[in-house]
């Protein structure tokens, strides 16, 4: 019995090679973000692992094509619904999976599966992770969980298939900061509010005389015009934003969005065919009320955090004001500087306003009829 079995030789090589070691073990990457009762995130899973779990390679040629991945989408999401479960403090959160994408990592391509879920979490979230549980005991899910500005990480699977996470209560300062930014971001990204305001502000550096626009002689009246319009707009939308945020009044979003578009047309055309010249602040106030409902729609998507409702509302409103003020400060000095030029009075005023009105008309049609 002196000779080793033949397969000893095979494993010898294994030993040498493995002590230098190969590459990564099986990991999935679970990124999860909890924003007030709303969970969004993505699960990244190696195509190799997804194949083992559900069988993507339908023609069995040993290659996974994008077409095969797409056909397996339903199968995959069914699998994930069973093997990845989130439970808030009150009830389970049903995951809605989005369109699959691909992400490259060192050991090949990964499926990138976005998802979101309505998830009443309050202070606790339980994650049950059983992906590849039976197929590969060395598989793990690497979790990055962000809630209330705090990020925690954990390894899911293995002996710890079900784990509970404490979500820290959002601090007041954190909520303030978050909503301030959201307000600013909203005013900059949704340019309809800005175009409305700018349409009302373009003539602020002019005055109407004998059916003609003439430059104001000094800064003072221009500044006064600007302050009146901005204040009226701010006051008006703050009122309705607050009313809507506390659920006192609600308007259907299609209606408010359409009227917002219409308000831009009115304000812009008023520059071309002036009806209201001295009291544009009234337009600002009247339509500002409706813009407030528009802001409220954004806020209701985010939700107001329990315990910091008022502060968040104030912060969001301040963000909106800061955002619009920044644009006013950037644009109006230029308007004032150009106010006496033909370019401004004969070009920007009529044609710029017409262009804005045209754009708003497109929005109006889209919002009133579309979707």
């Amino acid at each position: 019995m002196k000779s080793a079995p033949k397969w000893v030789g095979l494993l010898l090589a294994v030993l040498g090679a493995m002590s230098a070691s190969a590459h990564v073990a099986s990991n999935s990457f679970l990124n999860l973000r909890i924003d007030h009762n709303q969970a969004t995130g993505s699960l990244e899973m190696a195509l190799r692992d997804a194949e083992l779990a559900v069988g993507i390679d339908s023609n069995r040629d040993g290659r996974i094509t994008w077409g095969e991945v797409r056909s397996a989408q339903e199968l995959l999401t069914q699998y994930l619904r069973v093997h990845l479960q989130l439970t808030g403090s009150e009830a389970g959160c049903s995951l809605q999976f989005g369109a699959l994408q691909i992400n490259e990592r060192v050991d090949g391509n990964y499926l990138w599966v976005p998802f979101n879920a309505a998830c009443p979490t309050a202070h606790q979230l339980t994650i049950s992770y059983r992906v590849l549980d039976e197929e590969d005991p060395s598989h793990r899910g690497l979790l990055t969980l962000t809630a209330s500005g705090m990020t925690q990480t954990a390894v899911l699977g293995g002996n710890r298939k079900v784990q509970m996470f404490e979500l820290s209560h959002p601090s007041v300062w954190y909520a303030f900061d978050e909503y301030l930014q959201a307000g600013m971001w909203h005013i900059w990204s949704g340019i309809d509010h800005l175009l409305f305001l700018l349409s009302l502000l373009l003539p602020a550096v002019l005055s109407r005389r004998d059916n003609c626009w003439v430059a104001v002689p000094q800064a003072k009246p221009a500044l006064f015009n600007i302050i009146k319009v901005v204040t009226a707009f701010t006051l008006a939308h703050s009122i309705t934003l607050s009313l809507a945020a506390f659920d006192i009044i609600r308007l259907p979003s299609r209606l408010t969005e359409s009227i917002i578009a219409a308000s831009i047309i009115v304000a812009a055309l008023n520059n071309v065919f002036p009806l209201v010249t001295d009291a544009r602040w009234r337009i600002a106030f009247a339509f500002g009320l409706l813009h407030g409902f528009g802001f409220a729609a954004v806020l209701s998507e985010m939700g107001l955090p329990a315990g910091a409702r008022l502060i968040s509302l104030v912060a969001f409103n301040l963000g909106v004001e800061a955002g619009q003020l920044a644009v006013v400060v950037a644009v109006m000095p230029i308007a004032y500087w150009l106010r006496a030029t033909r370019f401004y009075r004969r070009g920007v005023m009529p044609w710029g306003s017409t262009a804005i009105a045209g754009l708003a008309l497109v929005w109006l049609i889209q919002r009133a009829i579309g979707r």
Partner: protein
Amino acid sequence: MEARQFVKQLLGIIVVSGVLCAPLAASPFTPSNDAQVLADLPAGAHHTELAARRLARGRLAVAVPLARFYIEQARSTGDLRFLGYAEAVLQPWVAQAAPVPSALVLEATVQQSRHEFDAALVTLNRSLNARRDDAQAWLTRSTILRVLGRYGEAADACEQFSRWADAALSIICQQGLKGLSGHLNSAYAALAALSSQNMLDAERGWRDAELGEMAVRLGRDSDAEHWFRDDLQLSPRDFYVRAAYADLLLRQHRNAEVFALLKGEESIEPLLLRLAIAQKQQNDPGLGHSTALLEAAFSAESARGEAVHRREQARFLLEVRNNPQAALAVALANWAVQREPDDLLVLVNAAQAASDMQKAAAAIKFAHTQGISDVRLAKLGV
């Protein structure tokens, strides 16, 4: 016209400021056409494989060859997932109260591959207590003890192995250890004199790998190259030797040959590391991509709390990232687990770069006590 331009510019400014504020686009992408191939599946990775695995639950005669096949696949593809598959197949047999040596030895190999050396030794002891005459178990034990730097015990295990293995394999096992314990020259001569005529390819590959490494430590680079090439001819998937060969080429600044040697091997982390080092030396634009992939892999590994690639990570920090302090910390953690000459080399390199030789003192003392001889270390004054 001018007025329109003004409005356009105004809109432009607003849009641009919006874009600048937007978060950077995420890296996932949507492939452009259905025919695009996203992954090649190695044998054993198919969903239908699960049927064979179910069969293995009830039959040892299926489980053992299947697990061995998975371990082989892990070796030849570099994909550690196969170790998980092997573990899944072995699990019911390992869990039995009465030890099943054939399953336990394979389980130990899986554990060893994950650098769970202590657990692997425990598993092997269980197996050897049930069955002493298991050559494979003794050899695996010897290999683990050698990686741990416990050369005396490794030699004992080798001795036991020799009782049941054939002469040539015994010589490779013994001389490999002697080459680390003060007898490098004679060990090299003994192995080089060994006739490879009756050896299996894998056995010859093992001998070549030992000879190549010894030649490197002796400073005989052209001989080392000969052995590495011979091995790669026999087993092109031996990425351990491929990595060692790449290191030799890197030392000689033969970067073009490094690129050629590692082409298509980027998915194997240790090889990607060598590629990144060559890219760094060449100022190659591919470096950013390689670095990002390696960073992601190392961070995933540390998130799992596993340390399979600490040697690579230390070299990455030192040679790609130019961060000697961080490299030294990782190299020390690595040295606490495994003690091969390459582990010492990266530790000393990092300690010198960090001007903190004190941290490497214990490791250097260990090398001197054992009689590890290596020109690469000698050049560093060790």
